[in-house]
């Protein structure tokens, strides 16, 4: 279980302190899929980065299974079972997709296992396994590989920062299935997704709403989701232009 206790995070902005996260307390119980939503700029991604250790809170404590990890490095948190999928995945010259999956999963990872993770995110493994994780990959391809690295890690807590960003409709469909699959196999682990996609919110066990750096809503999906429908906090996956809609039908 992950617990955030009175977390605040300030940055210096033009000489004055700006508070991005204000006294946030929440928990992600074991075996649950929790989605954090909220308006853009509300602090969702910052919260995810604080949990992964990429940023350090100015105040408050972060506990993982009762252990205080607030002062721990990104590496130590990763080794204790936190996986993190970046909103904007990083490119590496020369490092191949297989290398990255092997770094995630472990040295002994077999090619066939690595391919399974790629297939799970809708990539034809044969075409991608030896590709370099460089600028030759599209944003959507990169994003799916990023998600595959987190799947490969099989961590107790997997965090996905806006996994749908930069992904096309077909892949999005696939993505939902990936999360549903993860959820089936969740056992004691938990999943935390930052998203404002209605489809992702609709598979959540719990939903947390973050606005202006504060928790403004927290509860079960059935309790929270109806209040969000129709707002920017629960967007439809795709709005086709009329021409495209006809083409899709024809």
């Amino acid at each position, binding site marked *: 279980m992950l617990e955030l206790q009175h977390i605040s995070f300030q940055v210096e902005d033009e000489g004055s302190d700006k508070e991005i996260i204000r006294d946030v307390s929440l928990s992600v119980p074991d075996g649950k899929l929790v989605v954090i939503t909220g308006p853009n700029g509300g602090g969702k991604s910052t919260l995810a980065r604080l949990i992964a250790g*990429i940023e350090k809170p100015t105040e408050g404590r972060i506990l993982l299974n009762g252990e205080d990890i607030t002062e721990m490095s*990104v*590496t130590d948190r990763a080794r204790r079972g936190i996986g993190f999928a970046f909103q904007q995945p*990083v490119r*590496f*010259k*020369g490092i191949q997709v297989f*290398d990255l999956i092997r*770094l*995630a999963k472990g040295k002994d990872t077999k090619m066939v296992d690595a391919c399974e993770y790629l297939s799970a995110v809708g990539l034809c493994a044969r075409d991608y396994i030896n590709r370099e994780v460089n600028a030759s990959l599209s944003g959507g391809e990169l994003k799916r590989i990023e998600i595959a690295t987190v799947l490969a890690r099989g961590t107790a807590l997997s965090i996905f920062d806006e996994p749908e960003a930069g992904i096309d409709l077909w892949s999005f469909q696939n993505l939902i299935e990936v999360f549903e699959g993860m959820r089936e196999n969740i056992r004691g682990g938990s999943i935390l997704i930052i998203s404002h996609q209605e489809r992702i919110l609709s598979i959540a066990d719990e939903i947390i709403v973050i606005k202006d750096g504060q928790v403004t809503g927290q509860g079960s999906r059935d309790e929270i989701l109806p209040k969000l429908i129709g707002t920017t906090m629960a967007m439809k996956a795709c709005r086709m232009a009329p021409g495209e809609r006809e083409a899709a039908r024809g």
Partner: protein
Amino acid sequence: MVKLDEIQLRLLREVADLHKVPEGAYNIRSNGTSAGRASTANIEIIPKENGSGLDIRIKPGTKKESVHIPVVMTQSGLTEVVYNDFHIGEDADVIIVAGCGIDNCGPKDSQHDGIHRFFVGKNAKIKYVEKHYGSGDGSGKRILNPVTEVYQEEGSTVEMEMVQIKGVDDTVRTTTAKLSAGAKLVVRERLMTHGSQRAISTYVVELNGDGSSADVVSRSVARDDSYQKFDAKLVGSAACSGHTECDSIIMDNGRILAVPGLEANSVDAALVHEAAIGKIAGDQIIKLMTLGLTEQEAEEQIINGFLK
């Protein structure tokens, strides 16, 4: 064949991936003398009369054969200049593996200057691999100054892989190439310098015939207090295409100077250069740390990938 000691065998493995006597034609040079040599029906290795090097003659039409000419030095204070000429017959398709490993445990500098000339016949194709490696903890420097001259006849292809990853204190690499019509040159250079090493690499590629092309790409990492200079010049004097690229990572107090040069003497010459120097991106390190690597492990992985 002269028996080689453990250090010499290790150097051979490093520079030529050789675990035993190679198949095909070879000459192993150890501490200034030949430690073994073999020619084949199609590839003849002949020592020059004045003893300054080798003439390697590859018969026209020779296919799928290889030549290994590694050099190992373990004697501190040895300085040598070696001239090797490769005559590659028309339509041949061969792999040439050179490379030099120096182990210097003594106080004096050890230096090997290999001057290689390639005369590549019409439609011939060669792949040339040259690895440099230094080891030993003596105060004497390990110095390598390779000079490579390439003369390509019509329709020939030369692919060069130049690798220097570790242990060479001082290198001045000079490569020149002259290409006739339809000839193609591809160079992939990988370099890492550390300590107070210095590596200078200069290319002058003349694209003299219509349809000729050159692609010279250097990837390098400069660590500690090392210094690198990459000076690549393409001269296009026909309807040709050329591309040079210097892509470098600097770390610590490393310094890199990239000097790309393009000279077009024909309106149909299409020449491009790219150069980028910078430190390892912070988000690359963080991404690998989220996979459980330490900062140092992440850096190593990024560099290994970059130089792969």
